[in-house]
């Protein structure tokens, strides 16, 4: 990798680098979901192998959905997401996820995914606890153990903080 010239404006570098990476994260997980789904309506968690997606697994999470209406529970939280919360979220219901954190905003459209039964990706911004504007993008993909009913969600999310003077581009998140 070539050394970045000192004369180059570093704000432009940080502005350009995350865009492609964040898009690839969403589309990588999307491609993996399509691959393990094959000809079924939804893929099964049995077919998910973190070793197949080592680059994006730290940004992934798994939510268990209960048919009896019980609140969904987080079963897996990647390390890159877990560091945005001060306590472990694994085996915790979604109601305890703190607001204005990446896990919280990443799951904000969970009901829409359950309603439509298709993968949905959204990006937006939020103000985190230290009053920094953060751009994020996440994707939620429905999973099923019986091939008919949605029994869980696999998702991924990443974000970047908006530096002063940076251009606000939601597509970049």
């Amino acid at each position, binding site marked *: 990798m070539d050394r970045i010239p000192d004369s180059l404006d570093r704000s432009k570098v940080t502005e350009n680098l995350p865009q492609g990476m964040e*898009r690839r994260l*969403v*589309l990588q997980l*999307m*491609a993996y979901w*399509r691959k393990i789904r094959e000809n079924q309506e939804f893929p099964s968690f049995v077919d998910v192998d973190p070793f197949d997606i080592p680059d994006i697994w730290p940004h992934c999470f798994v939510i268990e959905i209960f048919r009896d209406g019980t609140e969904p529970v987080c079963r897996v939280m990647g390390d890159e997401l877990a560091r945005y919360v001060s306590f472990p979220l694994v085996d915790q219901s979604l109601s305890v996820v703190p607001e204005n954190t990446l896990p919280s905003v990443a799951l904000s459209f969970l009901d*829409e995914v359950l309603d*439509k039964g*298709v*993968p*949905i*990706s*959204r*990006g937006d911004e939020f103000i985190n606890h230290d009053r920094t504007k953060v751009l994020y*993008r996440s994707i939620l993909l429905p999973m099923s153990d019986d091939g008919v009913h949605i029994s869980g969600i696999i998702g991924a999310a990443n974000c970047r903080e908006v530096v002063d003077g940076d251009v606000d581009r*939601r*597509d970049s998140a």
Partner: protein
Amino acid sequence: MISYEIHTFRAGQWKADSVFDSRDIALMEAQKIVDGGRYSSIQVLEETYDEQTNKSTVKTIFKGGRKVDDRPTAKSAARKSLAPDKRKAARPEPKQPSRRAPPPKKRTGLVLPVAILVLIAAIGMAALIGLRYYT
């Protein structure tokens, strides 16, 4: 609010495949689906929702796949819905008329020439016999 929905044509109908809020990402994913060749047709719909009027407008911003015109039109939908009944009413026993028609035509076509040949042969034989007795 604008959203982009990818629809794929499967089992004879359009079905929602995925939803994005980014046009670029939706188009990238749509192109990947086209390149995969799994579906005969896909399209990307841009839906604009106006919260003030509570109305949505939808337009197609991308079409791809092997057959672009698999989208059901009003004519094809009407044809599909009426076809079974029309088939039952118009052709209750389609095979019977076709079986009866050819044989009679073949019989009338062969009978006359054969009869003529037989007649000619009979006349010829009679002439030979007559000549034998009279000569």
